[in-house]
Protein backbone atom coordinates (compact mmCIF):
# COMPACT_ATOMS: atom_id res chain seq x y z
CA UNK A 1 0.00 0.00 0.00
CA UNK A 2 1.36 3.43 -0.88
CA UNK A 3 -0.72 6.57 -0.68
CA UNK A 4 1.13 9.81 -1.40
CA UNK A 5 3.59 10.19 1.48
CA UNK A 6 1.88 7.81 3.87
CA UNK A 7 3.34 4.32 3.85
CA UNK A 8 2.19 1.08 5.48
CA UNK A 9 5.01 1.52 7.99
CA UNK A 10 3.71 4.99 8.96
CA UNK A 11 0.23 3.58 9.46
CA UNK A 12 1.50 0.64 11.49
CA UNK A 13 3.67 2.89 13.64
CA UNK A 14 0.69 5.11 14.36
CA UNK A 15 -1.63 2.25 15.22
CA UNK A 16 0.84 0.34 17.35
CA UNK A 17 2.00 3.46 19.15
CA UNK A 18 -1.61 4.41 19.88
CA UNK A 19 -2.07 1.00 21.40
CA UNK A 20 1.21 1.17 23.30
CA UNK A 21 2.46 -1.87 21.38
CA UNK A 22 5.92 -2.64 20.02
CA UNK A 23 6.03 -3.12 16.24
CA UNK A 24 6.94 -6.80 16.57
CA UNK A 25 4.46 -7.62 19.35
CA UNK A 26 1.90 -10.41 18.66
CA UNK A 27 -0.95 -7.88 18.74
CA UNK A 28 0.77 -5.60 16.24
CA UNK A 29 1.56 -8.51 13.91
CA UNK A 30 -2.09 -9.67 14.11
CA UNK A 31 -3.26 -6.15 13.27
CA UNK A 32 -0.91 -6.07 10.29
CA UNK A 33 -2.37 -9.32 8.94
CA UNK A 34 -5.90 -8.01 9.34
CA UNK A 35 -5.02 -4.67 7.76
CA UNK A 36 -3.56 -6.40 4.70
CA UNK A 37 -6.90 -8.12 4.08
CA UNK A 38 -9.42 -5.44 5.07
CA UNK A 39 -10.16 -2.64 2.61
CA UNK A 40 -12.33 -0.85 5.18
CA UNK A 41 -9.45 -0.63 7.65
CA UNK A 42 -7.02 0.35 4.91
CA UNK A 43 -9.32 3.19 3.85
CA UNK A 44 -9.77 4.29 7.44
CA UNK A 45 -6.09 4.40 8.29
CA UNK A 46 -5.16 5.97 4.97
CA UNK A 47 -7.65 8.72 5.76
CA UNK A 48 -6.11 9.25 9.22
CA UNK A 49 -2.70 9.55 7.54
CA UNK A 50 -4.11 12.03 5.06
CA UNK A 51 -5.67 14.07 7.89
CA UNK A 52 -2.24 14.40 9.53
CA UNK A 53 -0.68 15.29 6.17
CA UNK A 54 -3.25 18.08 5.62
CA UNK A 55 -2.40 19.71 8.95
CA UNK A 56 1.35 19.37 8.27
CA UNK A 57 1.01 21.14 4.95
CA UNK A 58 -1.17 23.95 6.31
CA UNK A 59 1.40 26.59 7.26
CA UNK A 60 1.68 30.33 6.92
CA UNK A 61 4.73 32.45 6.29
CA UNK A 62 5.68 34.64 9.26
CA UNK A 63 5.29 38.26 8.10
CA UNK A 64 8.46 40.38 8.09
CA UNK A 65 6.56 42.94 10.19
CA UNK A 66 6.02 40.33 12.92
CA UNK A 67 9.77 39.79 13.08
CA UNK A 68 10.40 43.55 13.34
CA UNK A 69 7.78 44.00 16.08
CA UNK A 70 9.31 41.07 18.01
CA UNK A 71 12.81 42.56 17.87
CA UNK A 72 11.44 45.92 18.98
CA UNK A 73 9.52 44.40 21.90
CA UNK A 74 12.64 42.58 23.05
CA UNK A 75 14.84 45.63 22.56
CA UNK A 76 17.14 43.75 20.19
CA UNK A 77 18.91 44.99 17.09
CA UNK A 78 18.43 43.30 13.76
CA UNK A 79 21.95 43.04 12.36
Amino acid at each position, binding site marked *: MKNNDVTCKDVMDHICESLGEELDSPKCIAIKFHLNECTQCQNYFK*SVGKTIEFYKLYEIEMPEESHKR*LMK*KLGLGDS
Partner: protein
Amino acid sequence: MDEVLLIKQAQEGDKKALTELVKNYEKTVFNFAFKICRNPERAENAMQETFFSMVKSLKQFDGKSKLSTWLYRIVTNHCLMELRKKKNNYISLDDEENNLPDGALIPDWSSVPSDIMENTELKNILDDAINKLSPDYRAVFILRDVNGLSTEETGQITELSIPAVKSRLHRARAFLRNEISKVINK
Protein backbone atom coordinates in the same frame (compact mmCIF):
# COMPACT_ATOMS: atom_id res chain seq x y z
CA MET B 1 27.54 28.87 15.94
CA ASP B 2 27.07 26.09 18.46
CA GLU B 3 23.81 26.55 20.36
CA VAL B 4 25.27 25.75 23.78
CA LEU B 5 27.84 28.51 23.29
CA LEU B 6 25.17 30.94 22.03
CA ILE B 7 23.05 30.25 25.11
CA LYS B 8 26.05 30.76 27.41
CA GLN B 9 26.90 34.06 25.73
CA ALA B 10 23.28 35.23 25.84
CA GLN B 11 23.09 34.32 29.55
CA GLU B 12 26.15 36.52 30.10
CA GLY B 13 24.37 39.46 28.47
CA ASP B 14 25.59 39.23 24.86
CA LYS B 15 22.74 40.81 22.87
CA LYS B 16 24.08 39.57 19.55
CA ALA B 17 23.95 35.97 20.77
CA LEU B 18 20.45 36.52 22.13
CA THR B 19 19.33 37.98 18.79
CA GLU B 20 20.77 34.94 17.03
CA LEU B 21 18.85 32.58 19.32
CA VAL B 22 15.58 34.46 18.76
CA LYS B 23 16.10 34.43 15.00
CA ASN B 24 16.83 30.70 15.04
CA TYR B 25 13.50 29.90 16.67
CA GLU B 26 11.05 32.69 15.79
CA LYS B 27 9.58 30.98 12.71
CA THR B 28 9.16 27.66 14.50
CA VAL B 29 7.43 29.34 17.45
CA PHE B 30 5.22 31.49 15.21
CA ASN B 31 4.12 28.56 13.07
CA PHE B 32 3.46 26.34 16.06
CA ALA B 33 1.40 29.09 17.71
CA PHE B 34 -0.54 29.59 14.47
CA LYS B 35 -1.30 25.88 14.29
CA ILE B 36 -2.73 25.95 17.80
CA CYS B 37 -4.48 29.36 17.71
CA ARG B 38 -5.52 29.27 14.00
CA ASN B 39 -5.11 33.04 13.83
CA PRO B 40 -2.04 35.10 12.73
CA GLU B 41 -2.52 37.94 15.26
CA ARG B 42 -2.87 35.55 18.19
CA ALA B 43 0.12 33.59 16.89
CA GLU B 44 2.23 36.76 16.85
CA ASN B 45 1.11 37.65 20.35
CA ALA B 46 1.99 34.15 21.59
CA MET B 47 5.38 34.38 19.89
CA GLN B 48 6.13 37.74 21.53
CA GLU B 49 5.11 36.48 24.98
CA THR B 50 7.19 33.33 24.52
CA PHE B 51 10.40 35.18 23.68
CA PHE B 52 9.72 37.79 26.34
CA SER B 53 9.56 34.96 28.89
CA MET B 54 12.67 33.39 27.38
CA VAL B 55 14.67 36.61 27.71
CA LYS B 56 13.45 37.14 31.28
CA SER B 57 14.36 33.67 32.49
CA LEU B 58 17.22 32.60 30.22
CA LYS B 59 19.66 32.82 33.13
CA GLN B 60 17.70 30.05 34.86
CA PHE B 61 17.87 27.77 31.81
CA ASP B 62 20.10 24.91 32.96
CA GLY B 63 20.43 23.05 29.65
CA LYS B 64 18.93 19.84 31.06
CA SER B 65 16.33 19.90 28.30
CA LYS B 66 16.78 21.19 24.75
CA LEU B 67 16.16 24.91 24.24
CA SER B 68 13.51 23.98 21.65
CA THR B 69 11.66 21.84 24.24
CA TRP B 70 11.80 24.72 26.72
CA LEU B 71 10.40 27.15 24.12
CA TYR B 72 7.68 24.67 23.08
CA ARG B 73 6.66 24.42 26.73
CA ILE B 74 6.38 28.20 27.10
CA VAL B 75 4.47 28.73 23.84
CA THR B 76 2.18 25.75 24.50
CA ASN B 77 1.29 27.05 27.97
CA HIS B 78 0.63 30.51 26.59
CA CYS B 79 -1.57 29.24 23.74
CA LEU B 80 -3.53 26.91 26.02
CA MET B 81 -4.13 29.69 28.53
CA GLU B 82 -5.45 31.97 25.77
CA LEU B 83 -7.69 29.27 24.30
CA ARG B 84 -9.13 28.38 27.71
CA LYS B 85 -10.02 32.06 28.26
CA LYS B 86 -12.23 31.95 25.15
CA LYS B 87 -14.46 29.32 26.77
CA ASN B 88 -15.60 27.85 23.51
CA ASN B 89 -17.81 24.80 23.51
CA TYR B 90 -14.98 22.45 22.75
CA ILE B 91 -15.92 18.85 22.24
CA SER B 92 -14.69 16.76 25.15
CA LEU B 93 -13.07 13.52 24.10
CA ASP B 94 -12.26 12.40 27.64
CA ASP B 95 -15.10 9.90 27.78
CA GLU B 96 -14.92 8.73 24.18
CA GLU B 97 -14.58 4.97 24.09
CA ASN B 98 -13.94 4.68 20.40
CA ASN B 99 -14.19 6.92 17.40
CA LEU B 100 -14.07 4.26 14.75
CA PRO B 101 -16.99 4.23 12.32
CA ASP B 102 -19.24 1.28 12.97
CA GLY B 103 -20.50 -0.73 10.03
CA ALA B 104 -20.67 2.16 7.57
CA LEU B 105 -18.75 1.89 4.32
CA ILE B 106 -15.49 3.84 4.66
CA PRO B 107 -14.66 5.75 1.48
CA ASP B 108 -11.21 5.75 -0.06
CA TRP B 109 -9.53 9.18 0.29
CA SER B 110 -6.81 8.41 -2.27
CA SER B 111 -8.35 10.76 -4.80
CA VAL B 112 -8.64 13.67 -2.34
CA PRO B 113 -6.03 16.22 -3.47
CA SER B 114 -3.30 17.27 -1.01
CA ASP B 115 -2.73 20.76 -2.42
CA ILE B 116 -4.04 22.30 0.76
CA MET B 117 -2.45 25.74 0.31
CA GLU B 118 -4.33 26.25 -2.97
CA ASN B 119 -7.64 25.15 -1.52
CA THR B 120 -9.45 27.71 0.66
CA GLU B 121 -12.43 25.43 1.21
CA LEU B 122 -10.21 22.65 2.55
CA LYS B 123 -8.40 25.14 4.81
CA ASN B 124 -11.75 26.23 6.25
CA ILE B 125 -12.71 22.61 6.86
CA LEU B 126 -9.41 21.98 8.70
CA ASP B 127 -9.82 25.16 10.79
CA ASP B 128 -13.41 24.27 11.72
CA ALA B 129 -12.46 20.73 12.71
CA ILE B 130 -9.48 21.65 14.89
CA ASN B 131 -11.32 24.60 16.47
CA LYS B 132 -13.82 22.12 17.92
CA LEU B 133 -11.05 20.09 19.51
CA SER B 134 -10.33 20.93 23.14
CA PRO B 135 -7.00 22.78 23.59
CA ASP B 136 -5.22 19.96 25.46
CA TYR B 137 -5.92 17.46 22.69
CA ARG B 138 -5.04 20.02 20.05
CA ALA B 139 -1.61 20.65 21.58
CA VAL B 140 -0.76 16.93 21.71
CA PHE B 141 -1.84 16.42 18.08
CA ILE B 142 0.18 19.39 16.79
CA LEU B 143 3.30 18.62 18.83
CA ARG B 144 3.43 14.91 18.06
CA ASP B 145 1.86 14.44 14.63
CA VAL B 146 2.25 17.79 12.90
CA ASN B 147 5.59 19.01 14.29
CA GLY B 148 6.98 15.50 14.66
CA LEU B 149 8.21 15.65 18.27
CA SER B 150 8.67 12.37 20.09
CA THR B 151 6.02 11.02 22.43
CA GLU B 152 8.43 11.58 25.35
CA GLU B 153 9.08 15.21 24.41
CA THR B 154 5.35 15.82 23.89
CA GLY B 155 4.77 14.41 27.38
CA GLN B 156 7.45 16.69 28.89
CA ILE B 157 6.00 19.77 27.22
CA THR B 158 2.37 19.07 28.09
CA GLU B 159 3.21 17.51 31.49
CA LEU B 160 1.32 14.37 30.54
CA SER B 161 2.35 10.76 31.04
CA ILE B 162 3.31 8.72 27.95
CA PRO B 163 0.05 6.67 28.06
CA ALA B 164 -1.95 9.92 28.37
CA VAL B 165 -0.15 11.40 25.33
CA LYS B 166 -0.88 8.25 23.31
CA SER B 167 -4.50 8.14 24.34
CA ARG B 168 -5.09 11.84 23.53
CA LEU B 169 -3.27 11.51 20.25
CA HIS B 170 -5.36 8.53 19.18
CA ARG B 171 -8.61 10.31 20.06
CA ALA B 172 -7.58 13.60 18.48
CA ARG B 173 -6.59 11.90 15.21
CA ALA B 174 -9.83 9.96 15.03
CA PHE B 175 -11.92 13.02 15.90
CA LEU B 176 -10.26 15.23 13.26
CA ARG B 177 -10.46 12.50 10.64
CA ASN B 178 -14.16 12.02 11.34
CA GLU B 179 -14.91 15.76 11.24
CA ILE B 180 -13.11 16.19 7.90
CA SER B 181 -14.73 13.05 6.57
CA LYS B 182 -18.22 14.52 7.18
CA VAL B 183 -17.43 17.24 4.64
CA ILE B 184 -15.14 15.43 2.22
CA ASN B 185 -17.46 12.44 1.81
CA LYS B 186 -20.59 14.52 1.22
